């Protein structure tokens, strides 16, 4: 079986979601090629060539590909599909955008958000916001899968695959108008080892940033938020952790003033260690927390900051 993995990257660097998707591909086959579509993405392609288990890297560039416009990405992948039995990409906002177009053009059902490869045709995926897991088997002539990266361990970078250049593609009926990229010195929420999240209990945007930001910076953590905090305007939307936001699985997740609605738990319950700080002892977040501290964050966070200052943080 030959597998094509469509890489996730920012044109300069590969994101580790790609490493994790290659890991999922290795459960299917040892003939794995990686496709890097972008613009000015040579360094990302070179990094892809180092991924363990990769046979070769294909690169296609254009302005529209640099912005991951779905019609352009589809136009590059579909002609390649004849050479592959499966096409995998991480279930990021870009992957979720173009993968179904490819599946439709190939007249096959897509399997979205795969969290486990059972065998070469059987996969597990969450449904109903993660409240149930569905095991599905496909008999399609080709498979199109999006992979939930947090469910797989990244492959290493010890390889040296050849790189081939393909023709780019455009999306003639779509214009790029603009973008707002959130700039942050902090690690990216999806890939951070530690995440500190705030909830509606923080009460205001000022309070959210006053309390959560210094704790996150002390721990070298990414900042997240519950949907309630985002909807109330305390935190920007790209902080949102949950069914309708990002799914994270860091080593340590610290929930501050978050009650633990089902929709939030769906986005963080696979974290290795969960800490909950909430003054409501009945908050559902305590049912999933490894360490619960029933207390007011107003006094708890300063104490926690002091305590962390006393010892080494590695």
């Amino acid at each position, binding site marked *: 079986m030959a597998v094509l993995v469509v890489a996730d990257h920012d044109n300069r660097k590969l994101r580790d979601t790609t490493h994790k998707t290659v890991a999922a591909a290795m459960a299917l086959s040892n003939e794995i090629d990686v496709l890097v579509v972008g613009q000015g993405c040579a360094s990302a392609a070179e990094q892809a060539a180092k991924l363990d288990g990769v046979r070769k890297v294909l690169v296609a560039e254009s302005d529209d590909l640099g912005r991951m416009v779905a019609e352009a990405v589809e136009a590059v992948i579909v002609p390649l599909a004849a050479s592959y039995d499966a096409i995998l990409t991480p279930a990021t906002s870009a992957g979720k955008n173009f993968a179904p177009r490819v599946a*439709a053009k190939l007249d096959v059902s897509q399997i979205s958000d795969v969290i486990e490869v059972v065998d070469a045709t059987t996969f597990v995926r969450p449904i109903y916001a993660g*409240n*149930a897991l569905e095991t599905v088997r496909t008999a399609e002539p080709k498979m199109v899968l999006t992979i939930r990266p947090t469910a797989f361990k990244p492959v290493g970078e010890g390889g040296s695959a050849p790189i081939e250049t393909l023709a780019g593609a455009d999306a003639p009926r779509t214009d790029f108008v603009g973008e707002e990229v959130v700039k942050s010195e902090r690690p990216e929420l999806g890939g951070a080892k530690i995440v500190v999240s705030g909830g509606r209990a923080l009460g205001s945007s000022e309070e959210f940033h006053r309390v959560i930001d210094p704790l996150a910076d002390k721990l070298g953590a990414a900042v997240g938020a519950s949907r309630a905090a985002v909807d109330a305007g305390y935190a920007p939307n790209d902080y949102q952790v949950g069914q309708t936001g990002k799914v994270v699985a860091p080593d340590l997740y610290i929930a501050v003033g978050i009650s633990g609605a089902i929709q939030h738990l769906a986005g963080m319950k696979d974290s290795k260690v969960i800490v909950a700080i909430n003054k409501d002892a009945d908050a559902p977040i305590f049912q999933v927390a490894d360490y619960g501290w029933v207390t007011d964050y107003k006094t708890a966070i300063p*104490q926690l900051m002091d305590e962390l200052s006393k*010892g080494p943080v590695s």
Partner: protein
Amino acid sequence: MKVLVTVKRVIDYNVKARAKADGSGVDLANVKMSMNPFDEIAVEEAVRMKDGKAGTHHAGGAVTDILVVSIGPSQAQETIRTALAMGADRGILIQSDIDVEPLAVAKLLKAVVEQEQPSLVLMGKQAIDGDNNAAGQMLAALLGWPQATYASKIVLSADKADVTREVDGGLQTLGVALPAVVTVDLRLNEPRYASLPNIMKAKKKPIEVKSAADYGVDTASRLTVVKVSEPPRRQAGIKVTSAEDLVAKLRNEAGVL
């Protein structure tokens, strides 16, 4: 211009879904069902476009006709009726007692689009039951139309839609030439509750009931569901009572600091 909006009848957003004990699916017996919340946002946006609400369109981009399409059991007529009460004009139900996979949904919608010739198809970004996030993109691909997914703002003109999209790491704005498919995200708007007079008025609005066979589309499942199970439960851990206690446990017991 004409806008086609899709709606799906799904488990209510506030109800926790549970896998059946025999692993055959999710237990929907006696469970409250509602319109998929993302679809509600799509209907609301279409109605705002028709009402000429500021920010939704430029000159020439006015919406005159809102067609609501649902694929599902006969009870999905209630879901269409809800959309009509919100302000849509007419409905089509493609009746199906089996759950139709996104690819077949896209094929059915393509057939409706070819008959109805809308300038814009508005859909929820995903249904909260299957969580596939695929039907809109598949429809756009089958039609050869441009798409703009995860919309948090839409401004319609006579021949294009400027759509601000919620993407990882920020926002991206694309101008898609019409006709196009746009799928909507949570932040686009807050859907209205239908007023009693509008609920009464909606009872008189037409709903056509069709079948997949009417459109010549095979809706047989391509995937086999082997089983549906409960996710592994996380055990509640222990309570700590001080910062000292917590940090010591994170360093020594959990080893994450």
